[in-house]
């Protein structure tokens, strides 16, 4: 591997492995008074945090490498893994660097975790971000604006400075560029998944949880420049698949590697969906808060945590399959994930109607054995290549 690319991949791997949030600490120490705000999956308006001069930090659990010692004592066996590792990170003081924590309304687990946070860490800023499920601008839009105004006021208080409209417009532009670069990376991967393997793309994306967006965009651009220079990377006879169900608790990196090694090119996915929640540009003109509201109402990603009007279930998934010339879908959901698992039968029936092959399995962020998954994914890939008409 080219040393430049090797260094870049190593850097994002180190960021991924760093439970102590060293990058966040370094950023804060670089200037007196800097603050950082954590957020759970999926979506929070990071533009507001950025405009307040603070660093938004995505907390997506701790994967398979953190031993859960205290976190399990807070959750019954039938609850997913991400709240355990998140509480473990907090109780081991690894999240002390955060000056506040946002919990978006994705499911009852993350919702109740916000209440647990309030009780466990009463001295810290905690906010449950109750996203609207009504998308009428005069109803859900008015409500969401009020919620954003409250969040804006809270962030001003925390940062000790006002969030000027101009600063917010600038932050919107910064995140527009970041999302646009991610879209560029996803398009490139879809065209040549062997040049941009998901095991690397994922780490690149995940760095966006910790880095300032400007730095993250630069990193993405650097990767987009370097990856095609790797002449050793060649296409293989693999199936092109879309990965679904990974929007909250993240699969271990080993699982993504396993899928690729089992004969699947991942050409689209919902990993770390919050980083690219807004599907398109947010307006940088006019009232910036209203621009955030309108973008949420009209440009949000289709996912299980969002209410969808009649007839729309699975439409975005089928579009993705068509657009990315995928040959099948792998439903890969965390165990005990209500949104993903309750959504699955609806998506499957849509795929069946469209004649799109699919398979499914579950994981936990600390899954360590991939033999069964490799076998299943390999068989799925073989069956597509041998039998599919797609």
């Amino acid at each position, binding site marked *: 591997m080219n040393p430049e690319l090797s260094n870049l991949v190593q850097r994002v791997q180190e960021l991924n492995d760093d439970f102590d949030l060293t990058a966040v600490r370094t950023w804060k120490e670089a200037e007196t008074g800097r603050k950082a705000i954590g957020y759970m999956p999926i979506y929070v308006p990071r533009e507001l945090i950025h405009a307040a001069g603070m660093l938004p930090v995505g907390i997506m659990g701790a994967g398979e490498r953190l031993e859960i010692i205290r976190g399990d*004592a807070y*959750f019954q066996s039938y609850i997913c893994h991400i709240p355990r590792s998140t509480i473990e990170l907090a109780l081991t003081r690894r999240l002390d660097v955060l000056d506040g924590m946002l919990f978006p309304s994705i499911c009852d687990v993350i919702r109740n975790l916000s*209440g647990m946070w309030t009780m466990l860490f009463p001295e810290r800023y905690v906010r*449950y971000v109750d996203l*609207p499920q009504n998308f009428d601008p005069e*109803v859900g839009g008015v409500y969401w604006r009020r919620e954003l105004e409250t969040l804006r006021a809270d962030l001003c208080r925390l940062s000790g400075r006002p969030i000027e409209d101009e600063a917010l417009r600038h932050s919107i532009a910064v995140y527009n560029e970041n999302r646009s670069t991610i879209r560029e990376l996803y398009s490139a991967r879809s065209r040549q998944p062997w040049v941009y393997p998901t095991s690397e793309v994922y780490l690149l994306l995940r760095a966006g949880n910790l880095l300032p967006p400007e730095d993250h965009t630069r990193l993405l651009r650097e990767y987009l420049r370097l990856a095609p220079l790797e002449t050793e990377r060649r296409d293989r006879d693999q199936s092109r698949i879309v990965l679904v169900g990974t929007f909250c608790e993240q699969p271990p990196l080993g699982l993504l590697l396993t899928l690729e090694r089992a004969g699947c090119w991942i050409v689209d996915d919902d990993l770390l969906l919050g980083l690219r929640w807004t599907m398109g540009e947010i307006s940088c003109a006019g009232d910036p808060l209203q621009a955030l509201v309108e973008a949420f109402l009209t440009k949000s990603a289709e996912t299980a945590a969002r209410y969808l009007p009649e007839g729309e279930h699975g439409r975005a998934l089928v579009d993705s399959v068509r657009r990315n010339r995928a040959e099948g879908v792998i439903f890969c*959901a965390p165990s005990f994930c*209500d*949104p993903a698992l*309750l959504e699955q039968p609806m998506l499957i029936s849509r795929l069946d109607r469209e004649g799109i092959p699919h398979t499914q399995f579950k994981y936990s962020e600390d899954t360590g054995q991939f033999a069964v998954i490799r076998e299943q994914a390999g068989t799925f890939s073989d069956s597509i290549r041998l039998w599919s008409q797609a």
Partner: protein
Amino acid sequence: MTAASASPRVPTEAGKERSMSLQKQMIAGHYTALSRAPQDGRKVVYTFVPGNLTELVRSFNLLPMLPEINALQSGMRKLSGDYIAEAEKHGHSEDVCTYVKCDIGMLKKGNIGPTGEKLPPPDLLLLSYTGCFTFMKWFELLRQEYDCPVAMLHVPYQSEGRILPHHVDYIVQQLCTEVIPKLEQVSGLRYDEDRLREMLRLSAQAEDDLVWVLESAKHIPSPIDAYFGGVYYIGPMFTAFRGTAEGVAYYRTLHEEVEERLRSGLGPLTPEGSQEKERYRLVMEGPPNWTSFREFWKMFYDEGAVVVASSYTKVGGLYDGGFRHDPARPLETLAEYCMGCYTNLGLPTRVELLERYIREYRADGFMINSIKSCNSFSVGQLLMLRQLEQRTGVPGGFIESDLVDPRYFSAANIKNRIESYLQMLEQKRAGANP
């Protein structure tokens, strides 16, 4: 929640069976009306218990049906295991809510309701998204099964422990632009606010009596069991009878019966008869198990344990916190009602409520029945346990089961835990009074 068809054994004293037989008649009549709805030309609205808009639905002459109630009834009738298996056969994960799977399984097997009559398909799915994420997916799943419209009502969560004015506005706006127009469309009737006000007035009357009954458990000994018995008491209120004369009559009768028990110094009515000895007063958090409901109750009865307050009896409204439906503000009061349901409250508020119950009802202990199916209730309960012990000095017990999946009710294990917990309370008591 309601379980008229599986009511406790009818006691010999005539005065004590009136409310039970009344409830049984009311619920049987409601299910018959539902089953006859297609031929009678009546329209049916499926909705959920927390945040239900019964008065509004009934003000359009529509019949409410609650899939959670069908599921729990199926659990009590030992049908839920087969229904869940049927849903899992159709691709529903073993990890998710068993109410949903029981409902889907019942639908796949012909939609035969608790009274053995076929239930009608919905003319409208009123998705009151209150306190439970699964509700949203549940009705999205039903929407795929039925060709009918959905009215979505998003109820903001009370994470800060108080109702915010713009949250009320948001709900009222949704009622005006989403819910009421769809009710008008389905029913063919115009919204009649005077009718709604009258129904809300009746609701408030019944709510006064329900609160009186629930608070009667503050007496020592308690004349009621506020959990196992409580699920019967909340039945009409939480389902189809708020805002009706029948509902008012039921709660007046119940009030009088409990008053009589109190005068006579009688303990709670149980399937085994009147509970004569109250050895332990408990507060209960979490829903009960329905598949072995009677066996579960008996485990407490045998030990002389009476539940004097419970959170589950607040999932359809927190009336003992002072809330009453207010006819003067019809839509605003519905909004406030929705937001005040127990599972829509933040965890710190839930802890405060249970702490209040432990103190005000002079409980010896509290127990959490943690339900596998219900993340809305269950996530955070282990922290709630610690917080309550710290705040009150009262020890807590913890058991696990499920709503309607018989695979998750381990009778020996649960009985053992209950007995051990109560023995610990006994030792603590003995230590305090050597």
